[in-house]
């Protein structure tokens, strides 16, 4: 049943991704009235599907890549709705909604078959650890997208070319970028802290010598440094994009390291 709901959600994400194009690019408000309800419905079905999926698998957190992917998609969609609710802009949906569609597509039609024997899967703390870190990743990507939008609009204004009406004003994109980061920081901090406490209690100090774990702490430092620089020097435009891209690259490396780490993997070897 969970697959059916996920497929419904994916279909709705697809519809929303298509509707958001005329809504944003051609400022057709009618399409906005399709894109937003479709996304809200997709989030609902996605949530139901995820809950059923995890319940059926008798564990409380996503354990394989597909389940994680689908949770990440859900968080992206929620982030998009949050930005829409706060700033009334659908421009981010041009990238985020197709991303939600793609993140849901593979799990909906080729669900993961991995079995797991990881003993901590049933604890709520692990669930929090995963959700918080994924939320931090989603916030970072959102910030990167907003910074890119800032850069494009800034270039148009500087070159005296006609501005793109579908892009929000510079100050709005800047706020989205900064507030996303400010939201992501506590998520990442709490996520890493919870993970560390669990690891300390179960595996011991050796856990913290794993390169993947060290990289995760380096990622946190980069995240903090980025926020510090952005807030204190008011960094915007090109340099803000470079900085966000660098941290995003670190995040991707940490994510990819899950495949190679000896102590931190999605599934049992």
């Amino acid at each position, binding site marked *: 049943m969970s697959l059916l709901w996920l497929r419904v959600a994916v279909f709705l994400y697809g519809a929303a991704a298509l509707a958001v194009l005329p809504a944003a690019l051609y400022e057709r408000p009618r399409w906005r009235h399709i894109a937003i309800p479709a996304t809200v419905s997709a989030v609902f079905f996605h949530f139901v599907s995820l809950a059923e999926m995890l319940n059926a698998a008798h564990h409380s957190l996503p354990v394989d890549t597909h389940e994680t992917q689908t949770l990440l998609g859900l968080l992206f969609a929620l982030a998009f709705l949050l930005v829409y609710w706060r700033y009334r802009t659908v421009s981010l949906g041009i990238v985020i909604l197709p991303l939600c569609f793609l993140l849901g597509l593979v799990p909906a039609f080729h669900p993961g078959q991995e079995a797991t024997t990881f003993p901590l899967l049933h604890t709520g703390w692990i669930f929090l650890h995963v959700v918080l870190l994924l939320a931090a990743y989603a916030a970072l990507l959102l910030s990167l997208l907003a910074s890119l939008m800032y850069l494009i609009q800034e270039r148009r204004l*500087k070159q*005296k070319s*006609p501005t793109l*009406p579908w892009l*929000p*004003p510079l*100050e709005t994109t800047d706020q989205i970028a900064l507030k996303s980061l400010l939201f992501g920081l506590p998520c990442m901090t709490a996520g890493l802290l919870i993970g560390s406490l669990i690891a300390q209690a179960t595996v011991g100090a050796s856990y913290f010598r794993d390169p993947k774990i060290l990289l995760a702490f380096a990622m946190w430092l980069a995240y903090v440094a980025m926020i510090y620089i952005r807030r*204190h020097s008011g960094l*915007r435009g*090109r340099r803000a994009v470079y900085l966000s891209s660098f941290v995003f690259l670190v995040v991707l490396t940490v994510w990819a390291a899950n495949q190679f780490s000896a102590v931190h993997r999605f599934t049992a070897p």
Partner: protein
Amino acid sequence: MSDPVQTKPGSLVLLGINHNTAPIEVRERLAIPAGRLADATRTLVHQPGIREGLILSTCNRVELLTLQDDAESIRSQSKADLLRFLHEYFAVPTLDIQPHIYEFREREAVRHLFRVASSLDSMVVGEPQILGQVKESYTIAREVGAVSTHLESLLQRTFTVAKKVRSETQIGSSSVSIASVAVDLARKIFGSLQGKTVLLVGAGKMSELAARHLIQQGASSILVANRTTSRAEKLAAEFSSSNVYTEAISFDSLYEQADRADIVITSTGAPQKIFGRSHGQHFLHRRRNRPMFFIDIAVPRDVDPRMNEVEGCFVYDIDDLQQVASANLADRGREAQAAETIVSREVDKYQQRLQSRDAVPAIKALQQQAEQLRQAELARSQSKLAGLSPEQREAVDALTRALTAKLLHPQLTALRESTRTKDSD
């Protein structure tokens, strides 16, 4: 109020002058001040043969929209009557007006009205005021009882069409004046202008206008710098209100104070640049890179164009603003084509509705006549039907009804068609 279906249709006539047909010298002689519009409308509908009427008077046009009696003799007289009204009411010789007058009837009058309200006939295509002006004229005409059934429905349709044109095209979305372009650009940078600070350097009509536009959009502080302090103070006082903080700053402290402003409008007569690239860097540093928008209306320019290279500084001179305005105007031209298509479609729809409405009285009369005949025939055969059970009576009744309807159907269709053909001829 009489039933619209029962009222004789009448003839729709629109007579007017506008910026395309008459110079300002003529237009100003016919312009009606808002305070006199009700009286003028009342006088118009008291003219012989005029059943309903409305006067639209703006700085660019004066138009008389009337619904007149349908008789052929009156029809040929209608233009002369309206000209006489203009002559008598404004004391302007008919010969002075006649060469500039245009006249539209029926379908073309509807089209013209739709185009006017949709701002397709305006001097600046897409400007939003005209719809409000048409609505104002309508309200006044309604108050004096000059608009009832036919013009009421036409004007309601006009407002719907104008809204449709606004929502389905981008005809009014871009600014075409220098001041509004500057405001638009400021909104592209800052989003809402609530709480923003504007610095006026020098004094000029256009910079004042731009500042007023910015205040309307929410700018809350106006700083004025001028080489003549008294002039700066006077200007600051002019902008002062309960919502706007104003301050005159001395020209000597300009470079220390300028970073307080989000938007700087310069219009001095200085022969050399007032703000250079390094000033921009300095301001941005002090503002922690919060953007600044420089609107340079002065000729020669007050702001070094190289300041635009500083990240966070946006510099637009008068040519840049003019260029954006021209591009927006061209965009409006393209959107106007889409708007014309909507108007044509809506004129067709309106005419069709009108035509089917015209046929309704005849259709009703025919149906009534047929029903009377049916009832009479049933009554005549009552004795022969006396032996029938209630169900059988019901069946006979239904049968006669169906027969009547089927016999009438070709006639009714022909009637509708002939009304449509007659009207389109």
